[in-house]
């Protein structure tokens, strides 16, 4: 428990006080860049491939997160309620499942850095060497 709280304390230290721009991050072995449309397609179940052909694993911040709202405002143009309605249709028609959700920028970086083919988004100020920025929408 103590270790966990230390880790989260650390993640807090690198968190910005004010929110900067959201950036799209990828696994270090993934492509170096991606277009906004390609990112949109990955997050709206229209595609499941990265530009280099490998299977993509997108991650989302949890609903209500301001970075998530900023990302979707810029990339998919949908708010949380619209996303929920969209995914309920995908799920109950057997077309797919929404991306796995993470609870913090630190968890997002940890998932993306440890999952080949993954893609995620964080606040620019949270970027570190564990992940690479592949798009600034």
């Amino acid at each position, binding site marked *: 428990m103590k270790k966990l709280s*230390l880790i989260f*304390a*650390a993640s807090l230290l690198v968190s910005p006080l004010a929110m900067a721009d959201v950036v799209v991050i990828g696994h270090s072995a993934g492509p170096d860049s991606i277009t906004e449309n390609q990112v949109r397609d990955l997050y*709206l179940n229209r595609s499941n491939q990265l530009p280099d052909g490998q299977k993509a694993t997108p991650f989302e911040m949890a609903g209500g997160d301001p970075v998530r709202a900023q990302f979707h405002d810029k990339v998919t143009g949908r708010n949380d*309620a619209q996303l929920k309605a969209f995914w*309920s249709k995908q799920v*109950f028609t*057997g077309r797919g*499942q929404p991306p796995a959700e993470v609870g913090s920028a630190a*968890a997002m970086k940890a998932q993306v850095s440890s999952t080949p083919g993954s893609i995620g988004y964080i606040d620019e100020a949270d970027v570190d060497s564990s992940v690479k920025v592949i798009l600034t929408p």
Partner: protein
Amino acid sequence: MKKLLQLAPLALAVAAGSASAQSTEDTLARMQQQLDAMQQQVNSAKNDSVRFNGFFSTGVARASNDAGYAGITETTSVNDLSLIALQGTFDVTEKSQAVLQLVGRGADDWEPQIEWAYLSHRPTNNLQLRAGKMRIPFFMYSDSLEVGYSQPWARPPQSVYGPIAITSYVGADATYNFNFDDSSLTVNAFTGFTDEDGTTGEVQLRNIGGVNLTWTDYVWTLRAVAATAEADIDATRLKALVPPTITVNSVLADGERGNFYGIGASYDDGSWQIISEVTRVELDGKFADTDSAYLSIGHRFGSWTPYIAAGWTESKDEDERKGLFINIPSQGVVVPESILNYQRTDYSVGTRWDITPGVAIKADITHVRGLDKGYANLNTQYMLSNDTSSTNVYTIKLDSAF
């Protein structure tokens, strides 16, 4: 493990003070390593091969009379609009899945029914093959027919969705996706059979074959569908109007070929939500051939999406129903075949209110005219003894997906 991670922010508030004091680069690096190690554990422990989702609806509806439009009368109970569904998605292999959806409806005393039960296989990224029990894809909203949360309305427009009693089939389909830069085309072919107790009686469709095409640029969606089948239809509900000692020929179709055609279009730019479908049903014999259409226009204002809709249904083969269905003057039961006709228009105004992601409330008022021109899909008993030409249906519904 996941719970601990979720609880951590709480602990953080307590520990933050002391931790910030010793925030050297060494500590950070060590913690990063620990975090990575933990993440690996989380990843490996996570079981993605089984997922459960569900949806739920409840509500009240009341009509201004007992005509029974959409099954709603003056005394409709909460149970009639209530349903709960649980869907399990099981990854069999990397490319194969089994999907099972159970729906319990208040109207059926919550007895669970299997609506989806299929195996799907994706040999390539763009091709999907499925076999099992699935929704029959006549309409734009067929696949999510009962998922109220994914629909803008309190109920799918009855002008188009009402005349077709069949919702599921057992068979197989193949779906191919052509992805273009900013649009996609989906081609789906399906075949199978169905045997259901529909709204008017027993309906059996054999050797179903159909194709549907959907093109979308993610704002506009255009859809076309054509299907054919051999139909057996027995209007058992009409038969129930007379004592069992009297024989009535309630067979409306006996192996005749039925055809279904539909086109649909929708526009959704995030603010405006415009949906329209036009359908045609053709079947030799007494069963009504119908043309139907609706147009629905909605607009999002934050969490509110008010809509207006108009629908129309008309039977095209009235000359096939000139006789009498039941003719027992001695008992005062004379039922003309023309009761199977449709000449109906309906007008709806309503709104969807997204309370929170996953939960929406809908309110709807629908006015229907032309009921006296044909009683198909209505409460026949009431219509035969009353001179009713219109009805108003008031609905409040809560839809949720989880």
